[in-house]
């Protein structure tokens, strides 16, 4: 189950953070997302140590804690997309397609002429689309 999704701008400013757990743990999720940003910076700036190729957008599993896993995706414009999930067994392909749809929704939201670049995304349509993508996310077959 996806706990939360986040979009962070290129100066590490939060553009969108939405939690889907229903509980009031926004602060804890903020904290997890913040820690993952450091991992992204490290991966991008030290390509020799990591296995990921320098130019790929999908960054893979960033930060496994005891109950959460965080996946990252970096766009060409240095915008970071993060997904925190509680599922233990998630397929790579599912997460990749999730990020693709997430990125497409983000591009549509940012193309809005009333959106100020660098400020938070306040479009309700974007929020609805992201909720739709999260609901449709099913981690393959179980067992």
């Amino acid at each position, binding site marked *: 189950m996806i706990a939360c999704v986040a979009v962070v701008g290129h100066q590490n400013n939060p553009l969108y953070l939405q939690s889907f757990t229903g509980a009031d743990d926004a602060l804890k999720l903020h904290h997890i997302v913040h820690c993952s940003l450091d991992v992204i910076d490290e991966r991008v700036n030290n390509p020799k140590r990591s296995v990921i190729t320098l130019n790929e957008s999908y960054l893979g599993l960033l930060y496994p804690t005891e109950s959460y896993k965080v996946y990252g995706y*970096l*766009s*060409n*414009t*240095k915008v970071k997309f993060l997904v925190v999930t509680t599922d233990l067994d998630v397929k790579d392909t599912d997460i990749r397609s999730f990020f*693709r749809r997430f990125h497409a929704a983000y*591009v549509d939201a940012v*193309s809005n*002429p009333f959106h100020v*670049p660098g400020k938070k995304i306040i479009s309700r349509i974007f929020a609805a689309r992201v909720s739709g993508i999260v609901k449709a996310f099913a981690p393959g077959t179980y067992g």
Partner: protein
Amino acid sequence: MGREVAESCFDGLIIEMVSAYGRRFYATKPDLASRRIEAIGFQVGHQLIERYTVERPRFSDHLEAIKFICKEFWSELFKKQIDNLKTNHRVGTFVLQDNKFRWFTRVLIDPSSEDNEASQGSSSEATSMLLHFPCGIIRGALSNVGISCAVSADASNLPSCESGILVFALKFSI
């Protein structure tokens, strides 16, 4: 899913926008008008590059980003690529040359009017105002991929705008 619009509407919109800023809003302050037009272009370029770099791997250096602008970005906007790219690495300048700039083919320049000098002056003024828009687009697109630069344009071979050669010079602040 996307709906389409006739290109003539788009051309009319751009020409009207430039003339509105140049002749009505800031008629007495052409510098301010040109900066506003460039700022509009900046936002457009900023948003467009977000859309056009979606599935692509990240750029490893400036040259790759400029090549992307010359090829894919330019073909999305103008249905053709930049014809010539020159660079001067030491100074940090890139020169992009487009031999048949699409927007010029619609700008009306009347070379046969009586008051020849005045009309020449005003027509080159009109096109230089128009040029700030694509300069802004390039600058906005590059700034979103993390490259800051100054863009200027130079159009030679006007009044025969059909064959107008448009040269963009990009200067990087490295």
